[in-house]
């Protein structure tokens, strides 16, 4: 049996005396779409930061495809095939949409720190960037500086940068945050399309998105996973209802 895409065991993170992640054990299977939900402040984004090495872990183990990745730098983890997006749009503001995407594919195509290749001559990088641009529907904005795109366009670019390198483990942090209903529908279709055949982990507040997209759902409450199951089972889980869906309004939206 192949190792899970991501395995976390006994994962803890303290900020000073306050414990944010209090012992998380979770396996993300290869090729599954896994959603992490939970109330505000449960530590969802922190969990992402630990997996992607944006923050150092306090204790515990994280394995990426069977390999211990504790102590690695973000770029080293990225090179091992894990790519993430950010809750707050994190793009190269002064570069054009095309340049943003090309920057995202250069390392994976092996160009490293080359100053002996001419960018314009790198056909593979151009084709890959163009293909992703087509995927995320920004072809008409090719030469626009990323900083002046609309919010929804920036969110699409954020996803584009994340998937461009061809990483097989994708972490999306609230990809639809702040989007209108129709923008969200587009984003869900986009995520479904571009993560085909890959492992997807996402933090999401919109229950419509979660139940529509995820194969499995984990519920994180106060730094601990209280349940991991198929969406339908999560909906019926008493502990989850009490801790989270029981607040009513969220659950109501979830059945749309």
């Amino acid at each position: 049996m192949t190792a899970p895409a991501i395995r976390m065991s006994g994962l803890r993170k303290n900020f000073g005396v306050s414990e944010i992640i209090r012992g998380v054990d979770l396996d993300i299977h290869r090729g599954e779409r896994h959603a992490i939900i939970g109330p505000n402040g449960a530590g969802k984004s922190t969990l992402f930061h630990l997996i992607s090495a944006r923050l150092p872990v306090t204790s515990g183990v994280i394995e990426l495809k069977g390999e211990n990745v504790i102590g690695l730098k973000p770029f080293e983890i990225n090179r091992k095939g894990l790519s993430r997006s950010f809750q707050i749009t994190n793009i190269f503001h002064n570069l054009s949409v095309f340049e943003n995407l090309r920057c995202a594919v250069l390392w994976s195509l092996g160009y490293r720190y080359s100053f002996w290749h001419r960018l314009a001559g790198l056909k593979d990088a151009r084709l890959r960037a163009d293909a992703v641009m087509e995927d995320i529907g920004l072809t008409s904005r090719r030469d626009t500086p990323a900083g002046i795109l609309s919010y929804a366009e920036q969110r699409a670019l954020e996803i584009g940068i994340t998937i461009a390198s061809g990483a097989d483990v994708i972490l999306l942090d609230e990809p639809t945050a702040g989007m209108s209903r129709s923008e969200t529908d587009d984003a869900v279709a986009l995520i479904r399309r571009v993560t085909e055949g890959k492992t997807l982990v996402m933090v999401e507040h919109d229950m419509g998105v979660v139940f529509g997209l995820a194969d499995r759902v984990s519920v994180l409450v106060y730094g601990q996973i209280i349940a991991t199951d198929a969406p339908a089972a999560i909906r019926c889980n008493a502990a989850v209802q009490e801790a989270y869906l029981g607040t009513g309004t969220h659950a109501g939206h979830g059945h749309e």
Partner: protein
Amino acid sequence: MSFVFSRGRLLLWGACLALAVALPLVLKSGFMLSLLCQIGIMVVFALSYNMLLGQTGLLSFGHAVYYGMGAFITMHTLNMIGKDGSPLVVALLPLVGGLAGLAAGVVLGWVTTKKAGTTFAMISLGIGELVAACALMFPGFFGGEGGISGNRVVGKGNLLGFTWGPQVEMYGLIVAWAFVATVAMFALTQTPLGRMANAVRDNPERAEFVGYDTQRVRYLMLILSGFFAGIAGGLTALNYEIVTAETLNAHTSGVVLLMTFVGGIGFFYGPIIGAILVSVMQIVIGGMTHAWLLYFGLFFLFMVLMAPGGIASVIAMQRNLWQAGLFGRMVPHYLAATVPILVLMAGLVGLIEMSYALLAGEGVGAGDTATRVMGMQLQLASMEPWAIALATTAAGVALTRWIGGRTGVAWNSALSTLHGDKS
């Protein structure tokens, strides 16, 4: 060459090279020739600085270290080869300077580029001071206060008739090196490393999450920037045949920062404009008055306040207006605006020069109270010239406010039309 250039670009670069080569035919005087030499060297130095500031987002206060190391090593090499050398070897010496700058970058950059932002700026300042202090502590290598000198005419033969003795031949050598270095630096902006430097400048965190070690990107850019700064240093050693500790001190670092900024860090050609402008100010205005640093300071202040993107951004703006067909309607406003600015400048220059003459005793003998300003013999003791200068300044301020305000209104309306057309 098509490696780097589209046809239009090739034409532009060719035209620039032709202009640089042709200039000495028109500007024949020794003064002009040495000015042109200085410009050529500064163009390379400023462009190398912008590899850090504009392209990688690293504000360095110690870039003169790489320039100075290039100059010193070149001078020592020149003295070492001495009579055994040939004009060909001398022509290649700037490369030695470049390698010295590169080596300095490898060693010092390892320390400075660990962090970006303010930390980098502070460490670069510290390293700059450290090296400048070393320059005075080790007179054997740096020559102490007097610096070290040499003679660029070595050996007997010549290279295609060149011995590099006459200044005009030195100018040719500078143009050749400056052109090659400029092409190389431009080409670098079109490579994966060059683009990732921009990415690291814009958003280092994201650059890490697309697989790039930002520290490595900064380090490599600093090494390469040191290389080109070293070439400029090598050229300055050959050109002046003397290198002093001043080449690597904080003042030189400051000047290259200012010229790059004034020219415009957001454009590749910005530093070229800055290098030309500041060199001209330094040498031409510096030759006319000892208060030139004051004028330069005022000018820098004006630029930072009015055009923080530098001269290149102003040019780019005019080009946008031109392409939108809006430039024509701004021309009368520009012309009108020059009048109050000239009046204001005349008044200010009068005040500054007279104050300077009075306080510093500049250009006047003991007890002498006259000075020459703009060709006029002025009596500092009498009220009259002061009153006139003050009145002129006041008139300039009033006119600038009046006409400048109207220009501003026209400018804003042109801009809104421009952006309206776009969206």
